[in-house]
């Protein structure tokens, strides 16, 4: 009897312990899920803000920056060329762009799995950003697909037909941007360093994808379309550097979304990219102004704001890979090199890259891609592991000099795609619609001839 009593007590105790264990396990699971929900909320909050910041770079940032640089008869048309991309590129992205860039297809282009955003919802896509809804990731990337073609408009400012520009931008998104974005950032893309690319190339926030493609395409546009009437014999001055300065400052602020947001979360990598971005821009302002002050005798406001943009371009591919000190060096070099491209090289060769889309974005993007191979270090970004599971050596300063070659290949592919793609597209648009407005329309200004409006009706 006594034994039976003891046994029953033992059973009861065992049952209670098991129940306690179950309860503890349940609590742990609940805790884990609330921690991951908190991280998702935190990351998602940051990424939604970044997404809005990147849109702000196009409108009003780029629209004002470019709008101030043209003559006043072209301000509305120039702002419209940026603004319309906020509508056109968004629609293209939703219909097919996101899928072609981020669907897992071949090494060169994505597949059609996300056509019309099918299956892109609240669940994360673990390949790209495991803690935020895929919808957020898709929107963040959409903003890049808007600003990249908008950057090109600086090269053909003040002379392109609006209709031809719409066709050009549609085809350019399909033939140049989506493939390049897929190759560098898409799963299985040829150059993707983190998701199985055969030529691992580092591009944190779009040095090759955004700036080389847009900048080099800009050069091709300027060469193909020819100079503005009167360039360079007649004075063609910026009509309002006030607007341009406001625009450049908005670009600088928006760029935190662009670069720090490319960490795709609100962790320490975002902070590190934020620091590099800001210091890159700051050093480039000084780099440009020092060159200008020495060579031209005066440090100009236009020089200062151009330097800021140049520095932001150069630091873009490197933002999540480099130390603050490296960012300062990269920025300073970026300011000085882009100054040289815009002030010396352009005039020597005589092409009319009207608002210096190539001199700043093409040249700065290429310099940034190469310097990323020099300064990238696993002390900043340890996401890439070697065979034994330790953080892999990234750039030259980590002892991986071969990375510079990978960066050069990545840049060369972007150059090649931009040159060939843009030439074909220009030819098609030229045959279908004609690229340039008539000489009369150009003299009257695009505001009147393309849109039937004037930017400044001061007597109204």
């Amino acid at each position, binding site marked *: 009897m006594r034994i039976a009593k003891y046994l029953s007590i033992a059973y009861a105790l065992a049952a209670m312990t098991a129940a306690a264990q179950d309860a503890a396990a349940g609590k742990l699971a609940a805790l884990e899920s609330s921690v991951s929900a908190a991280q998702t909320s935190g990351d998602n909050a940051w990424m939604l803000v970044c997404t809005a910041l990147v849109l702000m770079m196009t409108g009003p940032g780029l629209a004002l920056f470019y709008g101030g640089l043209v003559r006043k008869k072209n301000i509305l048309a120039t702002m419209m060329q940026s603004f319309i991309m906020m509508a056109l590129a968004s629609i293209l992205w939703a219909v097919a762009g996101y899928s072609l860039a981020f669907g897992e297809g071949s090494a060169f282009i994505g597949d059609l799995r996300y056509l019309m955003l099918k299956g892109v919802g609240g669940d994360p896509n673990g390949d790209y950003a495991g803690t935020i809804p895929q919808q957020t990731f898709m929107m963040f990337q959409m903003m890049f697909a808007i600003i990249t073609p908008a950057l090109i408009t600086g090269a053909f400012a003040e002379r392109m037909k609006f209709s031809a520009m719409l066709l050009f931008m549609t085809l350019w998104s399909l033939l140049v941007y989506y493939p390049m974005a897929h190759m560098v950032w898409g799963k299985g893309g040829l150059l993707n360093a983190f998701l199985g690319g055969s030529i691992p190339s580092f591009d944190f926030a779009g040095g090759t994808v955004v700036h080389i493609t847009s900048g080099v395409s800009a050069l091709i546009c300027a060469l193909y379309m020819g100079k503005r009437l009167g360039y*360079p014999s007649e*004075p063609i*001055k*910026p009509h309002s550097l006030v607007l341009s300065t406001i625009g450049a400052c908005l670009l600088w602020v928006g760029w935190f979304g662009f670069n720090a947001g490319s960490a795709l979360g609100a962790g320490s990598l975002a902070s590190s990219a934020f620091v590099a971005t800001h210091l890159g821009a700051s050093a480039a302002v000084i780099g440009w102004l020092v060159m200008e002050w020495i060579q*031209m005798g*005066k440090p*100009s406001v*236009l*020089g200062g704001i*151009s330097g800021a943009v140049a520095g932001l371009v150069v630091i873009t591919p490197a933002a999540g890979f480099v130390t603050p000190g490296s960012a300062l060096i990269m920025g300073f070099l970026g300011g000085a090199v882009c100054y040289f491209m*815009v*002030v*010396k090289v*352009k*005039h020597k060769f005589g092409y009319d890259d009207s608002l*210096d889309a190539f001199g700043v974005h093409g040249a700065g993007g290429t310099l940034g891609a190469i310097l990323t191979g020099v300064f990238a270090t696993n002390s900043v970004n340890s996401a890439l592991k070697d065979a034994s599971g330790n953080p892999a050596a990234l750039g030259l300063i980590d002892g991986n000099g071969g990375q510079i070659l990978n960066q050069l290949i990545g840049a060369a592919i972007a150059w090649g795609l931009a040159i060939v793609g843009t030439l074909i597209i220009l030819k098609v648009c030229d045959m279908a619609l004609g690229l340039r407005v008539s000489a009369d329309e150009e003299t009257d200004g695009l505001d009147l001839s393309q849109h039937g409006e004037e930017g400044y009706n001061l007597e109204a």
Partner: protein
Amino acid sequence: MKKIEAIIQPFKLEEVKEALKAIGIDGMTITEVRGHGRQKGHKEVYRGQEYQVDLLPKVKVEMVVGDGRLEEVASALAAAARTGKIGDGKIFVYDVAEAIRIRNDERGDAAL
């Protein structure tokens, strides 16, 4: 009647208006104009591209006064507009054949 036409530095306009008001000149017309005399222009540089700007912003002040007031008005205007530096501008004086007040057809000095 004489018409006084003065081309002055834009930043001197307020002083000139005050000086004329002080001696009882009620009417004038001003226009924003561009031009240069011996002052010539200046150089502007945008991204390495140099532009020579010859025509500088000026303000043209016009008024018509009775013959007897010409010296007084011209001296007051010149004194108020003067900085002593090149670029201060010029005053031209013309004969005026007639003045008509549109509101009530008054003629001559009475219309001024």
